[in-house]
């Protein structure tokens, strides 16, 4: 069953003024339940406009043509749109700036309260949501959200959405502004949320590396149109495609390409660092084997020199992938 069904969706901002801007153009999209879908595209390509149609925050402009249906709820119908709000949980960019209550527990309870749940149910959900995002309930419930660290605030904000237990979770640039450790933790959290709360997840990002590691499927937007749709490997492995969308390939792919340029054969479509590491390790083992068999001292020496240079690049890419990619 498909969780999201979008047909012929177009949207124009400030229609009929000099500032008119077509943000979406005939978008067709169908997402199976249980998918983690990455939505990529340059700034201004229409990602945010697209996702805000999913919970009815943006109304469908041309109802005769376009349609948005999520888990059987039709966004063009007023009653169903009201239910969509809770069916689709939306975590906006920098969600920590939307906290407003004086305690963490109250803030997380805002959504469930608006759902008019019973008091017991609300308490239960708040507790569960906080634990899910990795914040100890006893330790955080009564603290002021304004006294927390940036990463903790973001977790509280996400808990506020999770507490509504949406079937579809949409995150707009969820890791923007986090350090590498925070990034990793948040991406792991998304995996956990998908297993425990929201089977279908949409992640919007213009950072290919994040998407490459969590998404099952990726769509790419350019000027309001879907220009590519496939697995992360298909999309990010294709440098020409990624660059035509106005984005950069993931660092691992950049390193792999550079190695290949220097005549080192790697398996095709390497897009994340772990894969690259494995491939290089395998290659080294293979070379060692060849070197053992080699009889002449000359050959061994040449191989060793070759090997050292590979080993170096491997060590470098493991430690500072970004620098390696940019310096060379």
């Amino acid at each position: 069953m498909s969780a999201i069904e979008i047909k012929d969706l177009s949207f124009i901002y400030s229609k009929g003024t000099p500032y008119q801007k077509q943000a979406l153009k005939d978008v067709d999209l169908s997402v199976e339940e249980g998918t983690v879908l990455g939505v990529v595209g340059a700034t201004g390509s229409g990602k945010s406009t697209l996702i805000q149609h999913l919970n009815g925050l943006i109304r469908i402009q041309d109802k005769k043509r376009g349609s948005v249906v999520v888990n059987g709820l039709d966004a063009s119908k007023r009653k169903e749109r009201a239910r969509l709000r809770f069916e689709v949980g939306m975590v906006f960019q920098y969600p920590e700036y939307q906290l407003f209550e004086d305690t963490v527990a109250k803030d997380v309870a805002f959504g469930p309260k608006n759902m008019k749940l019973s008091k017991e149910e609300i308490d239960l959900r708040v507790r569960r949501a906080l634990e899910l995002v990795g914040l100890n309930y006893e330790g955080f419930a009564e603290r002021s959200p304004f006294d927390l660290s940036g990463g903790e605030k973001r977790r509280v904000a996400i808990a506020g959405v999770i507490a509504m237990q949406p079937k579809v979770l949409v995150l707009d640039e969820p890791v923007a502004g986090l350090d590498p450790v925070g990034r990793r933790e948040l991406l792991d959290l998304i995996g956990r949320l998908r297993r425990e709360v929201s089977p279908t997840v949409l992640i919007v990002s213009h950072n290919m590396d994040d998407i490459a590691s969590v998404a099952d499927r990726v769509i790419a937007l350019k000027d309001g149109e879907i220009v590519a749709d496939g697995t992360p490997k298909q999309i990010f492995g294709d440098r020409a495609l990624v660059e035509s969308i106005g984005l950069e390939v993931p660092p691992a792919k950049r390193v792999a390409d550079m190695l290949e340029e220097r005549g080192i054969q790697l398996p095709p479509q390497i897009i994340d660092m772990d894969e690259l590491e494995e491939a290089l390790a395998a290659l080294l083992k293979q070379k060692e084997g060849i070197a053992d068999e080699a009889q002449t001292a000359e050959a061994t020496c040449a191989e060793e020199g070759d090997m050292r240079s590979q080993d170096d690049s491997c060590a470098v890419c493991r430690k500072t992938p970004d620098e390696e990619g940019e310096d060379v």
Partner: protein
Amino acid sequence: MFKDVAFGQYYPTRSPVHRLDARVKLLLTLAYVVGMFFIKSYFGFILMAALLVFTVIVARLPILSVLRSVRGVMLIVLITAILNLFLVKDGEVLVHWRFITITSNGVHLTIKMVLRLVLLISGASLLSLTTTPVEIADGLESLMSPLKLIKVPVRDIAMIMSIALRFIPTLFEETNKLIAAQKARGAAFDSGSLFARIRAMVSVLIPLIVNSFRRADELAFAMDARCYNATDKRTKYKRMTLRFADLIAALLVLGTIVVVLLDRYYFASVGIYMDKLIFGGLV
């Protein structure tokens, strides 16, 4: 939506009128508005209206964009007009029915009043349609600079004004984002009980205020780090210079106003003669 606010009514067409010096436009608009109160004859109104239409054409503005600003005050204009029509009692009686008396003077005064208000508002809106708020602020700063002599902190006022202008769109954008984010959590802005609505408002206002303080703090810090100092002589990134076109514009507007003044004080008979010629027996 925030773009509408960001540029006020600004309507970008890159016309010669848009390129005029903001100070000149400010002063000429002021002159136009003041001149409007000296009009006596229909002839004067025709002159001022012609000037307005000419400017609109040169500025390549759609006439609708000018009328839109009039629409906002149309109700007030109409109410004043109707009161005027019934309250003026002198002159030739045209209609007399029960307690209602309409006189010829009443009709003329009313028509002139409506013309005056409509031209006034259209004229003022031309300024904001062809000048960005930042240009207006810069222009005001430059015009106010003589006040420095009497120790008015013009530079500080100007900086406050430009910062405020700069952040209006940011605040709007942020408000929209917060409304969207809280709506996504089921906040009821336009349905539900009064209590629920207030809660929804609070959920937007509190973060808006908290974020504004944070931003003000960051901005102050950034300005400090760049050695911002309001007392030293600062230069402008965009310098305003008077050009030939500014002279032409000034001559055109001031010339029209001079004719209006002459019409009122020296050649009153000419204006009235023209009125008779144009409107025949109606006047």
